[in-house]
């Protein structure tokens, strides 16, 4: 079981939209769509863990923080993200972070 965290990304949302279209046209069942999403969870978790190697540093001011159900949610303002190759500045960013330690139980 992998975090369903990444479903709310461009990749995840586009997959969900595509699945919704297929469900509406009755080409697949909702159960199958769910299975696809579970497969996506595994794939994205694995890909991020194994195929991505870069590091990013950031600095900003913390507007709010929230810790609930082992999930941190931050809102930062005036943040600079620094990577080796580029610098990105945003005036507001929301960070949603799940526990990175080994997952014993996961909601599905």
């Amino acid at each position, binding site marked *: 079981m992998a*975090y369903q*965290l*990444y479903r*709310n*990304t*461009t*990749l995840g949302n*586009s997959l969900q*939209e*595509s*699945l919704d279209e*297929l469900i*509406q*046209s*009755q*080409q*697949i069942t909702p159960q*199958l769509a769910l*299975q*696809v999403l579970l*497969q996506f969870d*595994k794939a*994205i*978790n*694995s*890909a*991020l863990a194994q*195929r*991505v*190697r*870069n*590091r*990013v*540093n*950031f*600095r*900003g*001011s*913390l*507007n*709010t*923080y929230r810790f609930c159900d082992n999930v*941190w949610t*931050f*809102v*930062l303002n005036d943040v600079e*993200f620094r*990577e080796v*190759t580029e610098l*990105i500045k*945003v005036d507001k*960013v*929301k*960070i*949603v*972070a*799940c*526990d*990175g*330690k080994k997952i014993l139980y996961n909601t599905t």
Partner: protein
Amino acid sequence: MACFNPVPKLYRSVIEDVIEGVRNLFAEEGIEEQVLKDLKQLWETKVLQSKATEDFFRNSIQSPLFTLQLPHSLHQTLQSATASLVIPAGRTLPSFTTAELGTSNSSANFTFPGYPIHVPAGVTLQTVSGHLYKVNVPIMVTQTSGRAGILQHPIQQVFQQLGQPSVIQTSVPQLNPCCLQATTEKSQRIETVLQQPTVLPSGPVDRKHLENATSDILVSPGNEHKIMPEALLRHQESSQYVNLPGVVFSPQVSQTNPNVESVLSGSASMTQNLHDESLSTSPHGALHQHVTDIQLHILKNGMYGCESVKQPRNTEEPSNIPVSEKDSNSRVDLSIRVTDDDTGEIIQVDGTGDTSSNEEIGSARDVDENEFLGVIDAGDLKVLEEEADSISNEDSATNSSDNEDPQVDIVEEDPLNSGDDVSEQDVPDLFDTDNVIVCQYDKIHRSKNKWKFYLKDGVMCFGGRDYVFAKAIGDAEW
């Protein structure tokens, strides 16, 4: 290039992994392979159009799309019907003449690397997917200017053949080599429909390329055939683009999938000339896919923007669920809106008609009524309190000054504890942002008001663009 932007490659690998992973699931459910391909196509298209990755399909050669871009001087080229394939320098592609194609049934393979290619009239093209298209009008394919290696305006030619109506499609614009198999066939009616099925990310950069790109599709004026290809690429009102009189669609297509027709009708300046004679019969097995693709790509066509084009699509959906959902949402929104108006009227009436001596009462009332928006200033709350106090004071005694009974004010304020709640920008608006990072945390550390974040395996989305990181370390002060 992966080191500069690993996102496209990563996304592609994830898509491949997922599709492969669910292939067995689909097979077990008895679902056709085509549906899986549809899913992949839809997914890739959406990711591409989301401008999350700039070079999503830059290096992919899997798509069988044959993309055409027409040069500025296309009309001139078309006037003089050349009979050979012009291959740009640096590429060795087989060239063959119309005469050769016309007389023999041999097929020649040539790859389209994205460089200019001139397709003479009379050539029948077959995509890798197996659809046969006959070129009625000589077309020259050029590479888009601007970003190298990225095909900006994939255009697909829809050809109709007697006996095999097929619609072209799909989507993913491919830059690098597309294989086309040219076969020769004779058909009595040649209908050429040119359209731009796919869409590139509709960002400004792409539009710029649109302007620069030679995407006109022109038909030689001497074409006696009724069907004239029409350039659907009309995102910009550029003089480079030429409107062609008509677009032919097979009624077959329209019959099998009204979505396409509706979508196409929704697209800009598209006229459909249905020619009954040329239409044929049995829908292709891949027709649905292609139609869906056309639908998708045309939908995403930047010509009219997404919203306007989506309308016909949604209305044509068989289940009409999105439409109903939309309606219900709009109704809900309307109801909320009505409530707002009502409260607004009340507020304004009170505010303008307020005879209270305290000028701040009106604004406080406004804030109070708008409380559901989640914006409450502490100052306004205090005003509310003072208002209540002042009214009570008026009732009890003359209200000459606010300092008359300070103790009474304090006593009345405390039980309410209204001054304690200060929320400047409350939750709903605060957490609503386009810039989101989804990740896992290794450690979150705080010392007084200094926070340190140790994050990992994250996907960042800033203004639509995606980034990823394996590790992220951050500092912030609260």
